């Protein structure tokens, strides 16, 4: 039953990704610049540029290029980057896991801190605690993450030496890349020290990345918690003798569904926000790749990144939707009846 539901969602998400890619393809076609020259290199002769143009199919009409691109994409080929001269798919495959693990830590932090702060604020609403949390949330949302990254790196990493300054692993503890996600690689290698090392390297970037999202989640949790806490079922629970912790827990369970939706939505955005901080921390992820691709007008690489981010967004949404069915009994029965 959930299977059908998932298929329908997947179809919608595929459509979404398709339109996103199409949109970005034509947008990038409008960008002035000559990818063939970039690919041929700075000192290239005219013949070499022309040669590159044919190799990249840039001599064909845009519609043909688009058709070719779609055809390639269906075959799982995203083309070749004009800067790295490698298949974009393999470029992305090495870089995406790196970003995803930062996003995963960031997401976990967002969920934990956002829900925690939101719950505290809602439970202490209109009191000092609430005000404090609201100001904290405003601060988290107001600090530009790229600035936070620079400042925190300098302060926590350089001055206080609490965190590694940059990179994804320590010099001595680099593991051979199997999955590309350093934490997982270290775990696969069975090296506990390296796992911790990889994790601590990603912590500061993840903290920076999660700041604005904590603000959004915190605010949402706060308002839906307030709604839940003033609902009759909470009052009834209190009348039955439930204590504040239990009450908060029950209210939280009822608000978890909308919170999840927001979290799912943010996965894609967080992946794209890595654009702003990866270079600062020297993490070779998709954000840094996208930044470089954008600067070098590596159109297919940009498209690939967008495709990946769109897919992350879509997958996160799909997972969230499935989780919601699991979490929300009302949806569960609708899904069952739809699947029937």
């Amino acid at each position, binding site marked *: 039953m959930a299977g059908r539901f998932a298929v329908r969602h997947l179809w919608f998400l595929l459509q979404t990704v398709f339109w996103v890619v199409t949109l970005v393809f034509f947008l990038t076609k409008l960008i002035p610049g000559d990818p063939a020259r970039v690919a041929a290199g700075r000192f290239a002769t005219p013949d070499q540029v022309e*040669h590159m143009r044919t190799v990249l199919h840039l001599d064909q009409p845009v519609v043909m290029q688009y058709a070719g691109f779609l055809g390639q994409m269906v075959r799982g080929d995203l083309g070749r980057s004009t800067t790295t001269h490698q298949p974009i798919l393999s470029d992305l495959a090495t870089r995406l896991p790196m970003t995803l693990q930062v996003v995963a830590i960031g997401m976990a932090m967002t969920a934990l801190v956002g829900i925690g702060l939101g719950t505290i604020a809602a439970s202490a609403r209109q009191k000092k605690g609430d005000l404090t949390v609201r100001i904290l949330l405003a601060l988290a949302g107001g600090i530009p993450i790229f600035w936070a990254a620079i400042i925190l790196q300098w302060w926590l990493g350089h001055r206080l030496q609490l965190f590694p300054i940059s990179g994804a692993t320590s010099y001595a503890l680099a593991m051979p890349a199997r999955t590309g996600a350093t934490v997982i690689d270290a775990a696969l290698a069975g090296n506990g020290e390296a796992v911790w090392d990889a994790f601590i390297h990603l912590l500061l970037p993840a903290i920076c990345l999660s700041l604005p999202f904590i603000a959004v989640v915190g605010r949402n949790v706060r308002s839906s918690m307030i709604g839940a806490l003033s609902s009759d079922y909470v009052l009834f629970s209190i009348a039955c003798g439930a204590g504040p912790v239990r009450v908060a827990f029950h209210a939280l369970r009822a608000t978890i569904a909308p919170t999840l939706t927001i979290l799912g939505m943010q996965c894609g955005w967080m992946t794209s926000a890595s654009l702003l901080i990866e270079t600062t921390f020297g993490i070779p992820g998709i954000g840094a790749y996208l930044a470089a691709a954008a600067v070098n007008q590596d159109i297919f690489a940009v498209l690939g990144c967008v495709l990946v981010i769109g897919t992350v967004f879509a997958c996160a949404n799909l997972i969230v939707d499935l989780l919601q069915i699991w979490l929300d009994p009302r949806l569960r029965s609708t899904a069952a009846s739809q699947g029937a």
Partner: protein
Amino acid sequence: QTRHSQRMNKIVVGSNTAPQSLDPIMTSDVQNELTVASAYDKLVDFDEKGNLRPALATAWRIGEDGRSVTLTLRRNVTFHSGNAFTAKDVIYTLDRIKTLGMGTAAFVSEYMQATSSSPLDVTIQLARPNVTFISALSKIYILDSALVQQHAGSDHGQSWLASHEAGSGVYRLSMYIPGQRSTFTRYDKSWRNDPARPDKLSFLYLPNSSTISQELQAGTVDVGITLAIPDVLQLEQIPDFRVARLPTPLQTYAFLNMRNGLTSDRRIRRAIALAYDYEGHVETILDGYGSVASGIAAPSVKCRIELPSPGRDLAAARRLVKAAGAQGKALSMAYNPAFAEHRRAALALQSGLQQIGLKLSLQPVTFPQYMAMLGNPDSLPEISILWDFPNYPEIGPMLSRIFDSAHIGMTNYSIYSNPKVDSLLRAGLNASDAHKACSDFKSAQALIAKDQPLINIADSQIAVVTGAQVGGPEFRPTFQLIDPTTLTITANTRTQVARK
């Protein structure tokens, strides 16, 4: 700190030059070459004085007509794979470059074909005569043809070479994490092995100068290049660090559009040259790491003529602007905001021009955008700030690339067209006699200087911050940054324990 002591006899280089590919064909990009040079050898090389010297090729002979080069190859060279180095590796490398037609192909565009009569000699046929071709070979890294062919795939091994190496250089690649780091171990069977080199050489790719500086101070990095000068000055204060000041072939230019806009008037071009604060540029923008330009190319380049800097003379500049009737008029300038020096130079020029009554609007462009502008000369703004450099210490190819009217639409940044210059440059390049070529290039430089299609702003130096145990690096004129193989561990620190 344990981190440091674990690293005895190892050098970690921190720089922002993450290679996009380790394929030697891509070494026309500075950032790729820094890493790739550790693992490969070239046929010939230049020493710090700009003299050609043997490498994989021990001797060479240029054909009478200038259309062929014959090389004698070094014997007993083995690649990291164990394969012996022979003529077929040279032929394969050059053929591959020609087929792929990108990157370093630009340096050897005259290459037609190569033949060999024995494993240790190669004859290269050129499509046009070019006496500097042998110098261009100093930019070509030789591939282990057998190994590459094993992994050739459908793209001549591009994908494989992007993250692997197939060279005979002094280091062999032991680990590579794209965008993050690469680690090399010393290859003791190298023909130019030097025990002074560290057992391990690593590159840590850190995008920001401040990060590199912080990592240097944390002891993670031993050699910092591409540092912003304020960071260098700060590190200079710390006793553990040594700052090496290396010349580079890099020069900062402002190219003036000869065809369109205000700058088509020579008086305005002259005025702009007089309005710029060259000393300020060197003192503040480069923080002393550089010198005011004294010619079209850096001093290390052969056949260059000395051209005194115009100096700053605002009054004269103002008079010229008045004479041209251009007061209050506007012009625009393209610059790449990714480079701090360009950004700052752009602002300095803007401020200078304001003082002589010209309004300069700035147009930040990415490199691809600038390339597109060049392709459509009418869209080129009046001024562009650029770095340029001879790829090897020969001025001819660079002059031709920039000032030959045949390259309008490509790399002729000023849309400069002077038939006399054209013929001098072509004659120089095709001359079979090096002296004749040199004098042609010198005459061309004088003509160009008179036309003022460019302002030579400053020659850069690079500051390399090294930990106490590191020796080198040394200047090599084919490198815009450093030659990583010149980094050594100084003998007296070999056994030294870690810094506090």
